């Protein structure tokens, strides 16, 4: 509930629409309430026609008929009025609800674009997607539709009560006392089924985990002929699930019959007390039928409110998660240089001074890192997995910020540049390829939005991607699915490289960029890169040592430190870790 104020903020923009919806809700509910009243009156009219024996004059009969007709006409008007208001209310509610959903989603998505990578790396993308999609939907559905239902229900309850009181106080009071019983019965059942549902959802989660594991890796399962064991394991959980599901499903399904029984009792009580009231002359038969009708309707909003309360609770829980997400700290550019347009003349002098960094506060990863890269130098970074190679790239691109020390480019601290400015100086290719839903051409144009088709094709030719693109069904206009669907990993990587080739960046970062491409093609590409990189600073992370032999500087990293630094010959001569790594590829059995 702590976010109640914030929720109101979203509603405020639509406050007039919401007031209008409430007005319609009142009109609709109140009109609906009067309908049984006029029908009861008409029924009384019928009684009057008969009871005044045969002696009734033709005049009074036609008068009575007229009364009934008026009652029925009024009823018809009320029905139509109520129906129209109901529809208008729904339309407005839909409009507001879906607008709020859209607004929150847009806000959340924009948030994703500004969140620090630290947050996104720590949280699985499925979790964030579920916040933006599922939570937002449940929040809006539960809150707004729940609210309007709650509002209508309350009006109906109060209205019914008032009308019953005006007809017959005793009967009304009895209904007032008895009806909440159905409410308690429902609550009693839901309280006792809660544990059963918990067991059910836990068992279900276990089963899903098993399915995920076995089906997700079915090829391994099959290669070991492990199917039978897997099935036995599955059946054990399946049987447990059967038992606890039956309990949960059955006991929870008791709510309906039980509340209906309570309603039946209330109905009978009204018939009884109302009947005596009619005999004693305090009530007409038509009004008794009206009371019975109300008694029947009266319990319905109570049941609805029970449902709405669970939905509201859920909506608030979702709201908490959404707002927590929207409140995450975002990255801001601290200072933006006045004249960023000098970017064209990037020299490419990169300096790292006493850099320290850690992903987790008390586990230092990189410490005391010092490095000076002269313009145009080619830096290769090698070392075992987890030594901090990729982290270094993360720091250069400011995906993460250093915890101590500084990094500067051409003498400017990178924290003094805007992130866009910094990043637009680098062309980057990662091991993980990313293909956008769209055509091949769109995907290449990511490198340079305003490039022409010819330029894009030229770039593709240069990285030897043209041959395979040409063979696609629609060539450059082939639409690729999210994740690149039919393309091989190597082909996807070629597309990513084409982007950078098109971009012609001032500096280049290749993080295992060619690991999925065979060595022959890799050489062809690296030649293209070499041409591109002449006199441009570049950073290359690779585990294939042969690809980095020609680097100007080789950084050998281990456990977050640069343990060796130099060129290929000097490092070999030194006879240290690099030599050991390098020689191991020549040893064989």
């Amino acid at each position, binding site marked *: 509930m702590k976010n109640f104020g914030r929720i109101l903020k979203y509603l405020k923009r639509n406050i007039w629409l919401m007031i209008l919806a409430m007005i319609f809700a009142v009109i609709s509910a109140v009109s609906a309430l009067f*309908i049984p009243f006029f029908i009861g009156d*008409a029924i009384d009219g*019928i009684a009057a*026609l*008969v009871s005044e024996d045969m002696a009734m004059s033709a005049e009074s*009969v036609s008068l009575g008929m007229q009364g009934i007709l008026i009652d029925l006409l009024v009823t018809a008007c009320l029905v139509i009025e*109520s*129906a129209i208001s109901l*529809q208008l209310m729904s339309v407005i509610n839909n409009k507001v609800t879906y*607008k709020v959903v859209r607004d929150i989603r847009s806000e959340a*998505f924009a948030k*994703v*674009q500004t969140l620090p*990578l630290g947050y996104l790396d720590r949280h699985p993308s499925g979790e*964030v*997607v579920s916040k*933006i*999609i599922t939570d937002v939907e449940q929040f809006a559905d539960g809150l707004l539709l729940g609210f309007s239902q709650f509002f209508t229900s309350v009006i109906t309850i109060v209205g019914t009560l008032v009308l019953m009181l005006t007809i017959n106080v005793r009967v009304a009071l009895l209904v007032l006392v008895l009806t909440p019983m159905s409410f308690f019965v429902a609550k009693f059942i839901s309280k006792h089924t809660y544990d059963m549902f918990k067991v059910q959802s836990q068992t279900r989660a276990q089963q899903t985990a098993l*399915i*995920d594991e076995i089906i997700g890796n079915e*090829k391994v399962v*099959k290669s*070991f002929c492990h*199917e039978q*064991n*897997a*099935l036995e394991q599955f059946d054990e959980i*399946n049987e447990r699930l*059967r038992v606890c599901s*039956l309990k949960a*499903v059955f006991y929870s399904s008791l709510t*309906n019959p039980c509340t*209906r029984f309570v309603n*039946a009792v209330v109905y*009978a009580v009204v018939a009884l007390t109302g009947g*005596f009231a009619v*005999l004693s002359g305090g009530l007409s*038969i038509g009004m*008794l*039928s009206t009371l019975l009708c109300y008694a029947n309707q009266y319990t319905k909003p109570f049941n609805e409110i029970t449902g709405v309360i669970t939905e509201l609770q859920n909506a608030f829980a979702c709201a908490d998660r959404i707002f927590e997400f929207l409140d995450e700290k975002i990255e801001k550019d601290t200072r933006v240089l006045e004249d960023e347009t000098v970017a064209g003349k990037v020299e490419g002098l990169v300096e790292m001074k006493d850099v320290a960094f850690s992903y987790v506060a008390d586990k230092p990863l990189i410490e005391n890192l010092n490095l000076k890269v002269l313009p145009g130098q080619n830096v290769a970074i090698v070392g075992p*997995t987890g030594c901090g190679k990729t982290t270094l790239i993360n720091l250069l691109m400011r995906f993460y910020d250093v915890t101590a020390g500084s990094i500067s480019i051409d003498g400017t601290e990178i924290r003094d540049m805007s992130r866009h400015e910094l*990043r637009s100086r680098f062309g*980057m290719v*990662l091991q993980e390829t990313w293909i*956008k839903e769209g055509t091949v051409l769109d995907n290449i144009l*990511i*490198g340079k939005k305003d490039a022409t088709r010819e330029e894009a094709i030229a770039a593709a030719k240069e990285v030897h991607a043209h041959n395979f693109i040409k063979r696609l069904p629609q060539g450059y206009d082939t639409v690729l699915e*999210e994740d690149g669907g039919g393309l091989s990993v190597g082909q996807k990587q070629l597309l*990513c490289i084409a982007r950078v080739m098109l*971009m012609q960046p001032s500096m280049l970062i290749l993080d295992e960029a060619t690991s999925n*491409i065979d060595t*022959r093609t890799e*050489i*062809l590409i*690296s*030649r293209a890169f070499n041409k591109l990189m002449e006199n441009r600073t570049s950073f290359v992370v690779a585990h294939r040592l042969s690809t980095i*032999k020609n680097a100007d500087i080789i950084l050998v990293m281990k456990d977050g430190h640069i343990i060796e630094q130099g060129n290929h010959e000097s490092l070999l001569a030194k006879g240290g870790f690099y030599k050991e790594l390098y020689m*191991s*590829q020549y040893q064989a*059995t």
Partner: protein
Amino acid sequence: MKKLLVYLKSSKKECILAPLFKMLEASFELFIPLVIANLIDKGLKGGQTSVIVQSFGLLVLLGLIGLVAAVTAQYFAAKAAVNFATELRHSLFEHLLKLGFPEIDNIGTSTMITRMTSDVNQLQNGVNMFLRLFLRSPFVVFGAMIMAFTIDVKSAAIFLIIIIVLSIVVFGLMAINVRQVKNVQKKLENVTSSTRESLKGVRVIRAFCLEQEETQEFNNDNNLLMKALNRAGNIAALMNPLTYVMINMAIIYLIFVGTNQVSEGLLTQGQVVALYNYMSQILVELIKLANLIVLINKALACGNRVESVFEIEASQKEGSAEVPRNEEAVRFEHASLVYPESSEETLTDINFSVAKGETVGIIGGTGSGKSSLVHLIPRFYDATAGNVYVDGVNVNEYSFEQLRKKVGVVMQKAVLFKGTIKSNMDWAMENATEADYTEAISNAQATEVAEGKGGIDGEVEQAGKNYSGGQRQRLSIARTLLGKPQILILDDSSSALDYLTDYNLRKAIKELDYKPTVFIVSQRSASIMHADKIVVLDDGKIVGIGKHEELLKTCQVYQEIYESQYCDQNSIAENAEKEVR
């Protein structure tokens, strides 16, 4: 959907009893208006107090019987539905495990998981609701109509008309709604996928400063979704007011006609009230029925999806050959492979044989067919032309179990399962001795890894999350080694190992006392250069077979691969470029 009904077979009794008890409950509900009519006409008009008390007792009794009938019905329905889901899940899981690799590729993991979980849950819910309501609602609707006819034929005609008109409106609206909901679903998928896409590509998006464009695109999808939601929501909202107006108009008409009937003495006042009550009952039930149909519709869609999985049959049939002795471990005879859904050959006319105990290196560029080639040996895929023999027998003649115990594969992607290191290794061989585990682990260079987790009882989390890629790779090698396969296939399974560990691993395998035939698939020249036989693949064809030294002299592709990893790059690049042009 029809075929899934067999899973209700064992719950036949429940499937009959549940709706029957529901009908019983409904029929008692139909008596209530009659009781009230009697109360008004005899009790109130006739002034008999006893009738009033009797009516009260009768109403409570009817409620009580209804309660008992309903509870019984709910129990049987729940039991049938839960049993149905349990059996269905079992069969589905069993079926999925029977499928071969080609089918698995085709369906995709996430689809299979959805079918097993949310689709089956929806079906369970659908069966439950169907058993509860499918007889009850029509029974009440028509029951109310028949009761009305027994009261007064003339005024009851309106019932028949209103039921027909209401059905048209309710089902018509629903038909429109179903289509619109599909549209909404599609728009929602767009929004979801553009969210997922931008999360996956966050580094690239930021590196290329594409945040604005991405947000713009998302907002477009988001707006389209809002419009679709509004359209669907507004039509769906019409259901309530429309049915409400129609029923009430019918009631007005009923009373109008009733007035004349009463004044002519053909009908009592209590009977008019009863007719009025029946009309209200019909409205409530029709709405319930409409909701039920929406639910059933969803369940049917799920049912069809599940059924389509059942319809996929394993394309590979297994044999059951006696195992003969033969000096030849593996022979490929003009084998070719075309993957389903693909038009081009992945492997073309593969022809070579391997003697027992030999080590074979397989090398080639990305997509040259290295993995596909070794996958033919344990019959992960079947050769589309030609044959593959293991120990002189066509692989199709073995049972899967026979063949796959013989052939141990370490896959490219190393996978561990929740449990312990031991429980993972047991997959390859049950009842292994302590010494067997230690030996397999040490040969796989995983001794440190196991020790780091406290020995072979060390815990393995879901998907082996608590191990690094290299550690998983070594443990999955250990797992395969424990089974002591006669033919060992390492499918690029040392890619995450550094060269030194890779070297030690190869050495250990070479020294195995049971002398398996070994296939090593790799992109690294170093991993295969000392093999007895090296097979060089290019675009699915063998372009060279022989020892390292021979191939260096005779096979251009091999030379290039080798030189690309060891020598001066510029000279080869020039050669390669010449070739391309």
